[in-house]
C-alpha cells in the first residue's frame, strides 16, 4: 500500500472535481453553440485520467488521447489556458490553433492530445527512447482508449517497446466502447491487458473508477518502467457517461446501462472513501468542491474575455 498524505488526497479530490466541472461547463457551452468543432467528454472516467497522471514524477511525460481533458488536468495543466484553447483563443495552450482535441504543453512534458486514434503509441515509444538514450530516469505515460488497441500502431509499438525495454506505461481507458462499437464486438480477447502476453510485458486490468486502484497501479508500473524493466500495459475499466460526441444519439446502448455505471461514479466513490475514513470533514469536502467549481467558472470567464488570434498568425509556426 502506498501512503497517501492528506495534502495529496486533497489534490486528488480537487482535480477530480475540476475535471468534472470543466467538462460540465464545456458541454454547456457546446450545447449553446459556443464551441466550434467537436469535444469529447470524459465524464465518468476522471479517476482514470486524473489519478494516472497524479502518480507521475516531476519531469515524466504524457501523451493524451482525444478524450483528454481529465488527463490534462491531472497532469497539472492550467484550466484557464485549456478552456481558452477549447474556445479557440489566442491565450490557449496552442494559441487557438488546436482546440480541445490537441491540448498540448510540450515544454512541461504534455506531448499533446491526439486526434488520430492510436496516434500516441508510436510517439510515446519515441519519447521513451529519448529518456532511455539520455538516461533521464523519466517515464512516458501513454493514454488511449479500448478502440485504439485495435490499431496496427498499438501492436507495433508494444512490440517495439518490449524488445527495446522502453520506459513507457501504456494506460488504456476501457470505457466499453470505441465510439458505438462495444468492446466485445471489436476485439476477441477478454481483457485488453491480455494483449500484453503477445509482447511478453506485464499487463494489468484494474478498476478505472477507483482512484486508489488507479493511483497505486500506475505508481507501481512507473517504478517498473523507471527501473529499466520495460513497458507495462494497464487496462482501466471505466465508462463514459456522455455520448462519444455531441452528435452521438447513443443508439448502441441502453439508458439503464448508463444509470448502472452512474452508480459507480468515480467522484462519488472517492467522496465515500473520504467520508468513511473520516479524512476530511464534510465542510472541507464541500470547500474543495466549491473551489474546483470556482476555478472552472474563472476559466470560462478568462477564455471568453480572451481575444481571438490575430489573422496574421495563420502563417506562423508551420516550421521551426
Amino acid at each position: 500500500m502506498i501512503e497517501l498524505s492528506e495534502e495529496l488526497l486533497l489534490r486528488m479530490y480537487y482535480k477530480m472535481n475540476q475535471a468534472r466541472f470543466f467538462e460540465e461547463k464545456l458541454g454547456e457551452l457546446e450545447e449553446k453553440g459556443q464551441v466550434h468543432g467537436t469535444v469529447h467528454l470524459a465524464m465518468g472516467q476522471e479517476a482514470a485520467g486524473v489519478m494516472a497522471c497524479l502518480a507521475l514524477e516531476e519531469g515524466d511525460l504524457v501523451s493524451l488521447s482525444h478524450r483528454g481533458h481529465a488527463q490534462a488536468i491531472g497532469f497539472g495543466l492550467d484550466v484557464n489556458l485549456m478552456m481558452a484553447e477549447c474556445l479557440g483563443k489566442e491565450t490557449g495552450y496552442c494559441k487557438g490553433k488546436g482546440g480541445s482535441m490537441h491540448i498540448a504543453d510540450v515544454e512541461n512534458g504534455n506531448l499533446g492530445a491526439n486526434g488520430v486514434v492510436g496516434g500516441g503509441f508510436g510517439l510515446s515509444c519515441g519519447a521513451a527512447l529519448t529518456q532511455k538514450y539520455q538516461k533521464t530516469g523519466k517515464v512516458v505515460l501513454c493514454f488511449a482508449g479500448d478502440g485504439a488497441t485495435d490499431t496496427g500502431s498499438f501492436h507495433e509499438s508494444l512490440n517495439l517497446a518490449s524488445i527495446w525495454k522502453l520506459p513507457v506505461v501504456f494506460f488504456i481507458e476501457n470505457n466499453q466502447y470505441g465510439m458505438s462499437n462495444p468492446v466485445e464486438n471489436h476485439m476477441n480477447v477478454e481483457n485488453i491487458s491480455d494483449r500484453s502476453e503477445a509482447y511478453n510485458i506485464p499487463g494489468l486490468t484494474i478498476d478505472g473508477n477507483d482512484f486508489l486502484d488507479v493511483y497505486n497501479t500506475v505508481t507501481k508500473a512507473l517504478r517498473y518502467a523507471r527501473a529499466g524493466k520495460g513497458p507495462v500495459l494497464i487496462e482501466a475499466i471505466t465508462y463514459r457517461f456522455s455520448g462519444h460526441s455531441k452528435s452521438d444519439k447513443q443508439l448502441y446502448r441502453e439508458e439503464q446501462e448508463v444509470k448502472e455505471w452512474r452508480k459507480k461514479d468515480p467522484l462519488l466513490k472517492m467522496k465515500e472513501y473520504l467520508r468513511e475514513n473520516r479524512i476530511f470533514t464534510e465542510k472541507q469536502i464541500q470547500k474543495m468542491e466549491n473551489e474546483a467549481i470556482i476555478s472552472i467558472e474563472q476559466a470560462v470567464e478568462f477564455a471568453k474575455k480572451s481575444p481571438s488570434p490575430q489573422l496574421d498568425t495563420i502563417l506562423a509556426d508551420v516550421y521551426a
Partner: protein
Amino acid sequence: MKTNDMTKMTYRDAIRLGITEEMRLDRDVIFLGEDIGVYGGAFGVSKGLLEEFGEERILDTPISEGAIVGTAVGAATTGLRPVCEIMFMDFITLGLDALVNQGAKMRYMFGGQSQVPMVLRLPAGSGAGGAAQHSQSLEAWLCHVPGLKVVTPSTPAQAKGLIKAAIRDNNPVCFIEHKMLYDSVGLVPLDEEYTLEIGKTIVERPGKDVTIVAYGTTLAKAIEAADFLEEEGIRVEILNPLTLYPMDMKPIIESVIKTGCLIVAHEATKTGGVGGEIVARVVESEAFDYLTAPIVRLGGLDVPIPFNQELESAAVPQRNDFVHSVYRLLNRE
C-alpha cells in the same frame, strides 16, 4: 426502376441512395467501415443500411484503417465489390499501403490479371472546426498514383451518379465527399440506371469572360461569386472536374480558348495541388496562345487547418477571392 422522376434530397441522402440501389442490384457489393452500423456512420451516410442489408453486408469494423483498406483490396480481387467508409479522409494515411502499393498497382504489375473493384469513401475538407487532423483535403496525393481513380461530387445528383459509377467501376475509386456539403439539397434522379461517367469534366455554368475550374465547397463559392459578377455584366464560365484523376482536360482547354482567362481553385493546399496540374496541362495545350492574362491559382494556404473559426476560413479560398481574381484578370480593379 426506370423513371424520369427527380426528388429533392441532401447530398448525404443521395450518397446513401446510390449505395442502397447498388447493394440491391448486386449482392457482391458489401460495405465496411467504422461505426457504419447502428450508429449510421459519423456523418449519417449509412443510416438504415444495417436494417436493410444486415450484418453480413454492413460490416462494422474495429478502428483499423489498414485492415479496412487491405481487406477491401483482397475482397475486391476475389470477387466482391467493397465500399469502405474511412471516417475522415485524414485517416487514409493509415490505409495507404494497402491502397497505393497493393490495390492501385496489382493489375498492372500482374500483367493485367487482376481487377480491384472497390470504392473508398473519404469525407474531406474544413469548415467544421475539426482542426489539423480532421480537415484535410488530400486528393492531390491520390491523383499521383496511377491505377487509382479519384472522383469528387459537388451536388446531391452528382453524388448519386458518381457513387453508383464508382461501385460499378472495376478499379479502386477514391470517392471524396466534402463534409460541409452533407446537408446541401438538390434534385436527384430516381432512376436506378442513372450514373455519371467517370472521367468527365462538366460545364456547371456557361459563360464567356473568365473560366473557373473548381470543385467541392470551393465550387459553391465560385458560383456565388459568378452570381454576383453577373449583375455587373461579367459572365464567368465554371467547370467542375468531377473526376480529378484521370482528368478530362478537353472542356477546360476549350473554355480557356473561349475566355482567355483561367482561375483554378480548391481548398487543398496550393502547393502541389490538383490546380497546378490543371494549369500545367492548359499551358501545354493549344489554349496557351489564347491566354490574355496570367493564370490565377486559388488554393488553401500552405498551413495545416487551424482550429479557430476565423483562421479556419481564412485558410481556404472564399467567394471574395474569386471576385477579386476576376476583377484583376479583367483589369477592373
